[in-house]
């Protein structure tokens, strides 16, 4: 205790000095707005840095449980992709196209001209000639619209023609159905100089007003080289499984009227 008094007596000036300086700086920081803000921001950046470092360490320590969580989520998402239960999510929205989610209420795949009926109609903004897609790919085009329902000319219809494009080389062709098996269609009007490989992917060209570009149509299954001149034909496997179709999106082109007013003949 005595030593403490000796110490205080010896360094009294320094102690008074430090106390007064601390008092002054507290006064400055408390009373002057600029200094106050500055102090807060400096202390925030220091504490923020500390928190960031500790959270980095924590993240590392929790990697294992985090991995398990991610794996579970992956499994969940994959199962959802499989049964196509994705409802209208924001990823499907952009400026040009609006997507109207709908349920399939009637579906046929064994006729020459197959039609799908959905539970959305004119009251929901469905109009004839709109494109219909699902999570897996293209479905077809709207044919007739009633108040609450609409009929769709599916890809499995000899009257349906969809303009599409090879992903690899951007060449454009048309996809039709040959009335054989619901998993396969035909790619017609392929320039004959084009080398077609099995597995080549076709997506919508975006040239029709019904579909946005880059919607999956299918992959080449077999090259049917009929050697009849300028165009060749290939067998296509639809990416959409029409027999299990449940949820679809009707594509509304927001600029259809504007495009039509330019008198493009279709």
């Amino acid at each position: 205790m005595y030593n403490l008094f000796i110490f205080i007596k010896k360094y009294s000036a320094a102690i008074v000095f430090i106390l007064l300086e601390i008092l002054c700086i507290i006064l400055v920081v408390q009373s002057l707005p600029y200094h106050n803000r500055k102090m807060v921001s400096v202390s925030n950046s220091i504490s923020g840095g500390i928190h960031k470092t500790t959270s980095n360490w924590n993240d590392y320590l929790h990697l294992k449980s985090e991995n398990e969580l991610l794996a579970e989520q992956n499994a969940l998402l994959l199962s959802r992709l499989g049964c196509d239960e994705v409802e209208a999510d924001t990823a499907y929205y952009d400026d040009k196209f609006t997507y109207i989610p709908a349920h399939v209420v009637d579906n046929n795949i064994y006729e020459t001209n197959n039609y799908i009926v959905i539970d959305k109609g004119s009251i929901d903004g469905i109009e004839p000639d709109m494109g219909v897609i699902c999570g897996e790919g293209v479905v077809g085009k709207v044919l007739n619209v009633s108040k609450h329902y609409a009929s769709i000319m599916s890809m499995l219809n000899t009257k349906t023609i969809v303009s599409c494009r090879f992903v690899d080389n951007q060449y454009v062709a048309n996809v039709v159905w040959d009335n054989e098996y619901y998993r396969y269609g035909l790619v017609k009007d392929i320039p004959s100089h084009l080398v077609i490989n099995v597995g080549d992917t076709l997506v919508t060209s975006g040239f029709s007003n019904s579909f946005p570009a880059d919607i999956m149509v299918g992959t080449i299954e077999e090259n049917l080289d009929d050697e009849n001149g300028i165009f060749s034909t290939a067998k296509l496997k639809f990416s959409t499984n029409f027999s299990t179709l449940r949820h679809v999106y009707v594509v509304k082109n927001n600029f259809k009227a504007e495009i039509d007013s330019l008198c493009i003949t279709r």
Partner: protein
Amino acid sequence: MYNTLIRNIIRFIALVVMQVLVFDNIRLGNYIHPYIYVLFIMLLPFDTPKWRLLVEGFVIGMLVDLFNGTPGLNAAATVFMAYMRPYIIGITTRKSDIEDKTAPSVSEMGLQWFLLYGLLLLLLHNLLLFWLEAFSIRLLGTVLLQVLLSAPFSLFVIILIIYVFKPLKK
């Protein structure tokens, strides 16, 4: 003793009034701002205890601050200056030189010594003051320029004041 106290009180009030009413309104450019009230701390007798130097520095600095609306700014700088004063006296004089002297004034120690002593103290005072005002290491260049321009100007004004009020002090 009584005489010294009266003189100190008059000096204290006069310097604060001059600082607040006149010199706080002088800003030459962005860099020169004279601080003359520190003369009070400079002229305190040699035998003033350290803690009294600090407390008086705090009081006069805080008084100027209250008029300026910057509580703590001048006080911090002046307390720092008061704390450094014994060391500055220590490095600029020999012990035998100040044995028979009462206060570090121009009349007792000579103009040349006082210029050095005053300049060193003003540099310390202004350095802390301008740095606290800027409150940023990024503005160090500006702060140093302010210090190097303001301290000599303040010293010049302080010398003028000493010669103008010479009869009052003696």
